[in-house]
Structure formats: C-alpha cells, structure tokens
C-alpha cells in the first residue's frame, strides 16, 4: 500500500467526522432556538389578556345630591376632590338591576366594578365640571375577577365554591352582554400607570421609569469610570508593579462576586453611611455601577490591547503625545469593543433584581417616580412582585412585564449595535 492509498483510506473517516460535527452543531442550534421560541411563545400567549381590559357601560347621574355639593357656577378643585364618587357608581348599578335588594347581593353587584372606577369619575368631573347635574353614559373599568371571567379564563361550569365569581354575578354579566353594556378594550393604562394591588389598575410605567433612571445612573457612572480605569491600567500604570497586580486580581474577582453582596455593600455604604435615599434609582444605579464596573473595565482593557501597536508607533513617531495617541487612535479603534462590553454589563444590570432587594427597591411603589430621588422599583423586581401576587390576572401582567423588559433590552442592544457600526473602522 503506498501513501496515496493510505491517505485515501483515512479520507472517508475524516469526512464522516466533519459531517458528524456539523450535525452536532446544527442540532444544538435547533435545540436552543426551540427553547427560545417556546419561551417567547409562552410569554406572549400568557401576556395577551393583559393588553385588553373589560369595561362596563353605566348611566351615571352626576346629580348634586349624590355628589353632595351645592349648585353654583364655579367649583374649586378641592371641593370636587372631596366628593364621594363611589355612590355614583352604586346608584347607577342599582338602577340597572332594580330587582337586587338584599345587602349581600348589593355588595356582589358593587363588586362588578373596579375600585379604581370612582377615581376615573372624579378625574372626569374635575376636568369637566359642566357634567355636574347631567346624566351620562360612561364606560367604567370592571373588577379584575369580572375581567378574568369575561376573557374566558374562569370556567362557568365549575361549582360556585371553586371560583372567585358568584353565579348571580354571571347572570348579571350575561345580561350586560345582551344589552351591549360590556366590552373589551385596549389596556392603555398598563403603559401609563404605576403599580397597584388591584390588577386591573396596575401598570408598568412606574417600573419602566425606575429602570430607565437606574440605568441612566449606572451608565453615567460606570462607563466613564470604567473606561478611565481601563485606560490607566493599560496605558499609564507601571508594569510589574505589585500593587497594580493586586488591583488587577481584585477587578477580575469582583466580576465574579454574587450580585447580592453588592446589594449589602450598597445598603451599608450608600444608604446607612452616606444617607442616599432608600429605594431611589440613585441608590440602585450606584449599586449596579459597582456590579457593572468590572465587566466594563475588563472588556475595555481587552479592546485597548487589541489595537495594533503599529498604529500607536505611527502616531508617536509623528510627535503625538501619549494622551493624543489614546484619544485620537486607541480609543476610537477600541470603541466597538468597549461598547460591546458596556452593553453586556448594562444588560446584566438591567436584569438584576437581587442587589436591589437589599436597598429597598422591592417596596410596593404606586407613584410613578419623577426623578433620581423618588422611591421606585425596576422592571425585574416588578416582575418578581407581580409573579408573587395571588390574583389570577397578575399572571398575564407578569408576562406582559417580561415582554416590556425584553423590548427594553432589545432597544438597548439595538442602540449598541448601531453605535458599534458607526465606530467600526476597517483596516
């Protein structure tokens, strides 16, 4: 057997090995895609109920008597604020179902409508005081149990004791439906309101803004500090110096520290020592910066290292000073790598909830934060809070919040990719 024959014999085996490896690769890609797809489809399907809301049409009589105010040409906002709007709804409901008489049934009837509906009416009256004294048809928000039933998520054939909605309420709903007084509508308040204990009133905006402010603080702190630290370590720090080595080892170790430890550190240092407001995006951003810094420093150092030395030499040879070499050549060429590292760090920070639990961002916050010092929560913590809530409608809200978080993440990544393409230079 000569060499050609030996090689030929082994060729078949070698090609088979290559094919096998290809198949493994394709298989693993398919499996991971399938998992991802399953996850996304599951989240989207679970979240769809959250994007619509059930409304009931009531004929509201904005009479002076029920509102308990005297007729006059002008009202102060305070006067209108103090009136009882709950009675308007109860009156309209009793009118709609005149045969309901017992106290128990009346209570069940009032429960058709969300507790938030009265505030909607109040805002309506404050905005348009001329409504007082007139009678109007108004679509008001239904209670979350009614909403869940109307969306078909509660089986009416279950025994009454096993479901959160009574038989008599079902007959009322059927009646409302036959009169076209009940409908589903896009849930705009999900995107415009803060958290609530009532799922039909709960919105994501508070957590979204909280995340936005927290991310801004994180970015503004960790990006410049991280890049500056990396530039110093890579370009200026003396080589073979023991304390630089200590710093380096520590930075690498910090990247692997469990994030909750940063939360405890933040609690002890920022809140207890420096008095940063608890639950505020400022505190959250400070803690997440600690977590993001090592990632950015490590990525930036790698990016700076990968800038060809010939470019530095060329600039130095022309008489550029060290800082000119860095700002004119090294940083622009390293920028794509720096951005990639930063976005990985920021994405990690965006999805982080454990360290924020330690500094009080897990608190129930109904108000939408207006700045860096207002108490707020962030998207992953909001998801955690909702997933832990007992009402059935929170299941859909949890999934919807996950979608919002994913979109936030996607937009952040998109921005990074666009910036990276802008800075990318070919040589």
């Amino acid at each position, binding site marked *: 057997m000569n060499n050609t024959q030996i090689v030929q014999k082994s060729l078949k085996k070698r090609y088979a090995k290559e094919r096998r490896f290809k198949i493994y690769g394709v298989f693993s890609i398919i499996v991971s895609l399938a998992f991802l797809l399953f996850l996304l489809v599951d989240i989207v399907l679970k979240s769809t109920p959250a994007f619509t809301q059930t409304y009931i049409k009531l004929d509201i009589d904005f009479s002076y008597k029920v509102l308990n105010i005297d007729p006059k040409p002008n009202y102060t906002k305070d006067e209108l604020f103090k009136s009882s709007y709950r009675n308007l709804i109860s009156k309209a409901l009793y009118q709609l179902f005149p045969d309901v008489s017992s106290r128990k049934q009346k209570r069940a009837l009032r429960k058709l409508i969300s507790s938030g509906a009265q505030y909607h009416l109040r805002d309506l009256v404050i905005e348009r005081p001329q409504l007082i004294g007139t009678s109007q048809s108004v679509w008001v928000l239904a209670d979350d149990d009614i909403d869940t039933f109307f969306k078909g998520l509660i089986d009416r054939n279950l025994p009454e004791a096993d479901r959160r909605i009574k038989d008599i309420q079902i007959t009322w709903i059927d009646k409302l439906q036959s009169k076209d007084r009940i409908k589903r509508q896009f849930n705009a308040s999900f995107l415009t309101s803060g958290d609530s204990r009532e799922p039909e009133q709960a919105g994501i905006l508070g957590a979204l803004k909280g995340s936005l402010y927290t991310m801004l603080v994180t970015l503004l702190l960790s990006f410049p500090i991280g890049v500056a630290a990396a530039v110093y370590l890579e370009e200026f720090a*003396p*080589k*073979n110096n023991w304390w630089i080595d200590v710093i380096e080892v520590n930075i690498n170790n910090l990247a692997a520290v469990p994030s909750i430890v940063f939360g405890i550190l933040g609690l002890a240092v920022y809140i207890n020592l420096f008095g940063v407001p608890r639950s505020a995006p400022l505190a959250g951003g400070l803690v997440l910066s600690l977590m993001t810094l090592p990632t950015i420093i490590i990525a930036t150092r790698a990016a700076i290292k990968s800038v*060809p030395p*010939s*470019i*530095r*030499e*060329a*600039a*130095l*040879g*022309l*008489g*550029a*000073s060290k800082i*000119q070499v860095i700002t*004119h*050549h090294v940083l622009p*060429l390293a920028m794509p790598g720096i951005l990639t590292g930063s976005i990985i760090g920021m994405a990690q920070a965006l999805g982080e909830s454990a360290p924020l639990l330690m500094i009080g961002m897990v608190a129930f916050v109904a108000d939408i934060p207006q700045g860096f010092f207002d108490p707020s929560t962030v998207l992953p913590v909001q998801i955690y809070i909702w997933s832990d809530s007992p009402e059935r409608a929170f299941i859909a809200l949890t999934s919807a919040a996950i979608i919002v978080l994913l979109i936030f993440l996607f937009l952040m990544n998109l921005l990074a990719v666009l910036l990276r393409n802008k800075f990318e*230079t*070919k*040589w």
Partner: protein
Amino acid sequence: MNNNDIELNQQLGKTVGNPLVDGIPRMSCQSVDVFYNQDLQAIFNVSVDLAKNQILAMIGPSGCGKSTLLRCLNRMNDTIDGCIVTGKIYLDNEDIYTSNIDPVLLRAKVGMVFQKPNPFPKSIYDNVAYGPRLHGLMTNNSELDDIVEESLTKAGLWKETKDRLNKPGTGLSGGQQQRLCIARTIAVKPEVILMDEPTSALDPIATATIEELMYELKSSYTIAVVTHSMQQAARISDRCAYFHLGRLVEVNDTNIVFTNPEHGLTENYITGRFG
C-alpha cells in the same frame, strides 16, 4: 567570561573605519549603551555620525541592535519599559536625552517610517494631515491642502491619489501605503527621517520606487535606514554601518565598506558567509 566571549570581544574591539564625518554632523551618537531591564545590554559603546543630506545605511545580522539604535535617535525607546540609554546623542549639537528636550518636539524633528506600512485607518488626506494638525503647522484649510499636496508629491504618490484623497489609506497597495507613510512623515517637515527596514514587506517594484524616493529625499533630509538587503545598502547609501551583537564593527563610506572592508566580520557578512 568563557573563551568564546574573550575571543569575540577581541574580534569586535573598537569600531574600525570612519565613524565621524567632516564638518558638523546632523546627528551624532557618542558612546551610546542601551540596556533592556538592566541585565540585558543591547548596544555597546556605539559612536557614529549622521552627515547632513546623506543616507546612512545600518546593516547587520538579526538582533545586532541596529533597530534599537535607530529607535534611540527619536527616543521611541522611551515607550518601552525598562529601556535605559546612556551616552550622548546630539541633534544639531543638542543632547536629545537631556531633560529639557521634549520627546514630542524631538519626534516632530526626527520622523520615522516603520517596517510594516502602518497608515491610520483614516482617509489618505487625514493620514498626511495628521502631523500638521497635531502641531498646528498651518493657519487655514487651504494651507493644509498645500501641505498635503506637497508631501504626497514629494513621496511620489500625488498622481495616484489626488482623485481619491477621501478614500481610506488602508485601501492602497503595500508600496503605496509605505509611500503614504513617508508622505505623512515629511508633512511635519522633519530634519531627519529614520527608516526601519522600509522595504522588507514590499515587492521588488515597490522597493525600487521607495529607493528612488529615498534618493530624492536626500537633498532635503538626513536619512538613516536600517536594511537587511546589502544590495539596497550599496545602491542608496552614502555611508554604511555594520553592526554585530550590539557593537558597531565598521562604519565608512559605502563604496569602501563594500569594496574594501577593514574588518573580517564585515567582510564575512557582505560576502554572504553568515547573516
């Protein structure tokens, strides 16, 4: 010291030939020693002059210290940690290693062209304009345009690139890139140009172009060139220095070095017995 070292030291001994030039040299090295990390000496007691408007070729086997010496002439070795230079190097009778000479200013006067063409990943125009912009050598844009055109013309690249000044410098061929680097260097109007094996990455035709260019540049600049090609050294240089293991063995007019070398090592090298 073992026997080999003693023998080598006897062989290397003092520089033979003619290290000094008549008149005032543009640059002058006197008893230069270079150490890397204290224990490793790369250059031993080298003294050599660079005459005005002449080309000094530095030849020798790999690792003989010729590039190290070249990089001392514009203090590029400052950027290497642990590199120590002793002795004196003068530029126009001024010691460049005294503390009152700024290396940035020095590098504006002593430009450098590297082994591998290294244009910036910017346009051809910006490559040439980088130095003048850095030092503020122009007052307005049309002046900068003039500098760019003049530099590219001197580097023999104007005709090829005048229509594509905004295209990336990295899109040129290897030879063109090296000429772009030369244009970039002369745009700062240096007094001395150091070239570290400028043609080793180029094909023969591009090499010939660069050699012609060096010959023309000689009239305005003083040039020191490190080369591995003895033919190149013989063709272009006025004076030639032969280095061996960190010592300057022989330096003299090029025709003398190549036709009648004084030192045995030089003869061995130029006749191709080693190196």
